[in-house]
């Protein structure tokens, strides 16, 4: 499986690359628009501040090629900020438009719990999705974020809870994304990545 890993300088690019290679994928890391336009399998990683991701995509003129590739049917996986960027906007960077591939706004988790939501948490309200094939129901995944997509859209395939429910896994046709870090989530995370590669093949 050939995977195009979008490298705009995010901190977790090397670990995502390593995790995909362990599963046998051929990974090309790139920030070149033409390569993203032509990709059949795209992974958008991300960690840190949402504005940094959006600004970096725009600085490298990757926004439209990415939207076009997904529109053509390329298999897409967003990780952490790569999930949040799919929406129209985020409270974390109110003036920057998101990719707008999904309707809605990413919002901050409540102040009455410790933030960032950092550590291992479980999933619930799981509907059938390729990403979670054979994943045990009590499996833990590693999260590190303070903003999240409200668990309201039909794209939600599983939610998690920290102060409120939020989308942990989403799937809408060829668009898939996870709020946790599969590359840091041990065997359960590797299984999610393997499922993505299979769905994309």
């Amino acid at each position, binding site marked *: 499986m050939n995977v195009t890993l979008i490298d705009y300088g995010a901190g977790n690019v090397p*670990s995502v690359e*390593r995790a995909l290679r362990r599963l046998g994928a051929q990974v090309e890391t790139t920030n070149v628009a033409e390569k993203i336009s032509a990709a059949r399998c795209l992974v958008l990683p991300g960690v840190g*501040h949402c504005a*940094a991701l959006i600004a970096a995509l725009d600085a490298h003129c990757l926004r439209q090629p990415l939207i076009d590739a997904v529109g053509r049917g390329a298999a897409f996986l967003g990780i952490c900020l790569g999930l949040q960027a799919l929406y129209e906007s985020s409270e974390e960077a109110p003036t920057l438009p998101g990719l707008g591939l999904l309707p809605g706004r990413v919002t901050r988790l409540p102040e009455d719990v*410790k933030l960032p939501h950092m550590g*291992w*948490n479980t999933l619930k309200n799981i509907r059938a999705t390729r990403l979670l094939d054979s994943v045990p129901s009590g499996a833990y995944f590693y999260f590190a974020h*303070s903003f999240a997509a409200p668990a309201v859209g039909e794209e939600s395939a599983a939610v998690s809870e*920290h102060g409120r429910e939020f989308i942990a896994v989403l799937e809408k046709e060829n668009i898939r994304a996870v709020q946790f870090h599969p590359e840091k989530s041990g065997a359960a995370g590797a299984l999610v990545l393997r499922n993505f590669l299979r769905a994309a093949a």
Partner: protein
Amino acid sequence: MSLARRIIPCLDTDGARVVKGVHFEGLRDAGDPTELAARYDAEGADELVVLDIAAARDNRPTFLETIRGVAEQLAIPLTAGGGIRSLEAARAVVRAGADKITVNTAAVERPELLSELSAEFGAQAVVLAIDAKREGGGWQVRIRGGRQATSLNAREWAQRGVELGAGEILLTSVDRDGTQSGFDTELTAAISNAVSVPVIASGGAKVPAHFLEVFTRGAADAALAASIFHDQVQSIRALKEFLRRSGVEVRLPC
């Protein structure tokens, strides 16, 4: 089900080896960092911390090599630190494979470092390490591996650090470190209840009851230990099974 409490082994490295000491002194060899990292990942550690205690002795290239080797072994988050004084040094550590950076003395000496790191990597990647020693009715911040006193109060410094951009506090009791007499749960609770970010308790762990105590009375979000794991005095899996039986939510790998 909710957020699980984390168990974090810590590798103190000097050059290419893991070392251990009592009260920040009297070092001896404790193994190969990549071998220990692979073992802890397989045993169900939730994260790994690597601290370069030789940082002051100009061993930076070796340390980056160690981080690369350790990161290669891990499918869990990696925090690295020891002697990081600049954004540039932090970038090198992140590029080598660390998910989070921890700073201690350098942040006391130049608190803006926390804001610079947070702006570049996000608060979730910035761990403020605080070495605290009982002093009168409170706790005083110590620097340079616990050897040097400061005028800072640990509780106030933790709060200030979070305002500046730290996303987590790694809190070590200088009084308990290396003694294996249990965590300072009073200290941990005082800091954990004073800040809005997760707190990792460190210093003094020996038996499973110590961990139970720091997660309940100590209000810790995570607990860190070194030699009891290195010496196989305590298995991580057995520790987590004990905690789960005692009603603490932990992640048991499948």
